[in-house]
């Protein structure tokens, strides 16, 4: 039996405002528990919420970026449930009339194929606090610093068909909110996280299967593993003649499995109703135009520009525009190298990304700046060093040993381009390897590489490889 997976994501992006969505308290992360919770966040008797206008601008930015309508009037509603870290006993959210309507994003898969994923809606809401279960000797601590932090909940259509598509979509939204500078995207701190709705159905059928909702996934890898586990679990159930129950599940990254949190029967009736403490959110057309005018170049536009302007492949352009920082870095490197964007692209995606990953650094913290990398690549371009030597220079630059020219000078890595000097080495190598010469001349072409290697070895890799090839061909024939 062939099964098809159906996935929809609810992404929570924490909006990077200075103060909370309905109070003046700071949103900075990492403060001592309950030091960033004011009377409003604590839900004291008599307090009232006042909307932070900045979140509206941020939500509108997102809506415009995904081609969605911005509602001229949206409503804040109360979602009622009891939990110790929910101070008022309700969360202020948007229910029937969200601020951002239907939009879409395009994702690109590793094989180069693209798919369009629908975004059903995006709405504003406040975050809850945090319950702390450790260190309290069987009691629970409550930290309300996070209570009232603004969130944009981005709800997708059930348009994804495998874990990789879901990851590609989540990455796309991640890139988008960072391009828009409305969310710092920090997943460890929980600024960007998602719930995944996963179901399976027989291939060829239209009706959706019963779904499980996997809560609070805060890494792309967890999302992929959780979905894959969940799909297998559901297939096992259905093929064993059972039925999937609609429920909320949690992913345990240590065990790599999902487990039941609560079933539909235990689910809350949230008793949504319009919050009488807040007026409807009215947004004027000129405000929307103002926001539209402030939008930066978005990933898709940038990608197409990179393809046209730099002659990059769709894949390369996609990788380089995955984050605003990487795109900016690349453009600075490319600017240093007139006309050789491909060289810049290869180095940014290759050596640089490799080194960043190795040390788990962000591109913004790279020890080799875009300007410095441009300086290095210029030396490849003008034949001062070979690409291979350049890698050695890069490592030295990474270790903080100076800029490219300083490292080349100090280590004496300048390329040998003097034909006479190279010929001299070639003659020595030929003289020292008579049997290889005989074999080569009797038709063992593969030995050409041996001679190249010997010449490069003897010159410490500094001989210009193109010249070595050319001269060897002449001498060996």
């Amino acid at each position, binding site marked *: 039996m062939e099964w098809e997976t159906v996935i929809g994501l609810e992404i929570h992006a924490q909006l990077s405002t200075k103060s909370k969505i309905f109070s003046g308290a700071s949103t900075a992360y990492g403060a001592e528990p309950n030091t960033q919770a004011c009377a409003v966040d604590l839900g004291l008797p008599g*307090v009232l919420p006042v909307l932070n206008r900045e979140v509206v601008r941020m939500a509108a930015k997102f809506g415009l970026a995904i081609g969605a309508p911005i509602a001229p009037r949206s409503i804040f509603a109360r979602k009622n449930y009891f939990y110790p870290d929910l101070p008022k006993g309700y969360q202020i959210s948007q229910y029937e009339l969200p601020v951002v309507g239907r939009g879409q994003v395009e994702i690109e898969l590793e094989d180069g194929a693209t798919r369009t994923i629908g975004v059903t809606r995006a709405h504003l809401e406040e975050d809850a606090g945090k319950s702390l279960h450790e260190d309290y000797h069987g009691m629970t601590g409550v930290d309300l610093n996070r209570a009232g932090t603004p969130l944009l909940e981005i709800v997708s259509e059930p348009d994804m068909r495998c874990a990789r598509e879901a990851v590609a979509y989540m990455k796309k939204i991640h890139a988008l909110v960072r391009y828009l500078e409305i969310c710092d995207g920090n997943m460890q701190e929980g600024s960007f996280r998602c719930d995944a709705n996963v179901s399976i159905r027989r291939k060829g059928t239209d009706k959706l299967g019963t779904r499980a909702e996997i809560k609070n996934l805060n890494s792309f890898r967890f999302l992929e593993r959780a979905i894959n586990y969940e799909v297998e679990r559901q297939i096992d159930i259905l093929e064993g003649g059972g039925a999937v129950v609609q429920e909320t599940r949690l992913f345990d990254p240590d065990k790599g499995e999902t487990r039941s949190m609560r079933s539909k029967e235990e689910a809350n009736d949230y008793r*949504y109703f319009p919050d009488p*403490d807040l007026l409807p959110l009215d947004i004027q057309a000129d405000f929307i135009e103002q926001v539209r005018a402030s939008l930066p170049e978005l990933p898709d536009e940038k990608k197409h520009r990179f393809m046209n302007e730099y002659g990059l492949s769709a894949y390369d352009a996609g990788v380089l525009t995955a984050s605003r920082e990487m795109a900016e870095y690349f453009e600075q490197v490319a600017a240093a190298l007139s006309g050789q964007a491909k060289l810049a692209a290869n180095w940014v995606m290759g050596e640089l990304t490799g080194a960043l990953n190795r040390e788990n650094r962000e591109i913004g913290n790279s020890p080799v700046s875009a300007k410095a990398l441009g300086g290095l690549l210029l030396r490849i371009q003008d034949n001062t060093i070979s690409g291979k030597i350049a890698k050695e220079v890069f490592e030295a630059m990474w270790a903080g040993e100076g800029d490219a020219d300083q490292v080349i000078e100090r280590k004496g890595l300048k390329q040998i381009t003097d034909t006479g000097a190279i010929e001299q080495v070639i003659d020595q190598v030929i003289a020292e390897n008579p049997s290889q010469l005989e074999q080569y001349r009797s038709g063992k072409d593969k030995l050409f590489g041996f001679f190249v290697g010997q010449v490069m070895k003897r010159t410490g890799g500094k001989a210009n490889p193109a010249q070595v090839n050319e001269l060897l061909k002449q001498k060996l024939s």
Partner: protein
Amino acid sequence: MHDKTIAELATALRGGEVSSVELTEHYLRRIESLDGCLNSLITVTAEQALETARAADDARVRGEAGPLTGVPIVHKDIFCTQGVRTSCASRMLDNFISPYDAGVVERFKAAGCPVLGKTNMDEFAMGSSNETSFYGPVNNPWDTERVPGGSSGGSAAAVAARLAPGATGTDTGGSIRQPAALTGITGLKPTYGRVSRWGMIAFASSLDQGGPMARTAEDCGLMLNVMAGFDARDSTSLERPAEDFNACLNSTLRGLKIGLPREFFGEGMDPGVARVINEAIDFYRKLGAEFVDVDLPHSGLSVPVYYVVAPAECSSNLARFDGVRYGHRCEAPKDLMDLYMRSRGEGFGAEVQRRIMVGTYALSAGYFDAYYLKAQKIRRLIADDFRNAFEQVDVILAPATPTTAFRLGEKTADPVTMYLSDIYTIAVNLAGLPAMSLPAGFAEGLPVGMQLIGNYFDEARLLGVAHQYQMGTEWHQMAPAGFE
């Protein structure tokens, strides 16, 4: 001294006839000796009051006194007062010392009014007789076997008994006007949004409105001048140009069109109340006002609509009282559910629990459309009725309550009978209009209140219409025996 109105006391303070400290001490002594049989105050704040009084007297010496500087008042215990217990007359908040002041409290502080104490009320303002208070019922000074009305029953009784010249109250379905009527004082519920709700503990957010309770319309205007104004901390607060609510006190009533809603003069009204209201109509006629019959066809639905909307909002507003951060927490909870159930079960009284359950039901999946949504639609129709009526008339006159003060315990057994005592006041809250109750006479020795309802923002006109009545009558000057 305590027979003087706020306006007279302000004049006496200005003229140096009396100091704020003397005045404050005088009222504190009256509270000490007389409140025992009324129970109108939950907390007496003598020290703070005297401190404010001293500061007020100093300010006067420096020439910095405002219109009400030095005039003592009392606050309904629904307004948060920094450093002072703010109980909402509930066991739930018996231990709650507010860390901040309500917007209204700040304004009276800034005006230099000493606060004598916090008044008794129905628990969380849910009640019409002041019998749901955790601190026991308040007795009506006109007959201590009877209720003072509610929920602002303590404020009403304190003003009627001359324990304070003025009090703050809140009105969600009649909670200022009904007790004002039953105790023979004057009370005003302003237009929704006039008075900040910041720090006013919410019962039903879309209906709650703070307002003044005093002996005369003029005094209510003086207090409203302090209380009203935009507050950025309350999103439903109205941004309007400043105005003197007593600006129209002496305007002529000649040609004034007063509407009489047929629906408010039907069955259920006590004959004594009807007689008093008809006499008031005659009085206004003599002053040159014209009377027009108006229709408020949906007003009959006010009580059922109110008892869906208000409990729905209250069920959510009171969810924060969970025993986790402040307020009552049960002993040794065995788990989270036990903590919630017992803290709330012990902390809330029966009427509050009833309304939370009714409201939770009305908002539940499957019932929301039939109850909450339908109630909101009818609410709009009720507001439209008033809008139509105000196209024909300037103010509307009606009884404030169907009967005079009833006996303690008389209506506690049947909540619906209790709810019907607000039948003439509730529609006004659903529409968000300003309205007041003023003393218009007596029936069998008990005060009867006349209600005046105005169009949006028409408080000044309402106060003028009421003031003209009080210039020609003496009902508002009557003091209950033993409290003269």
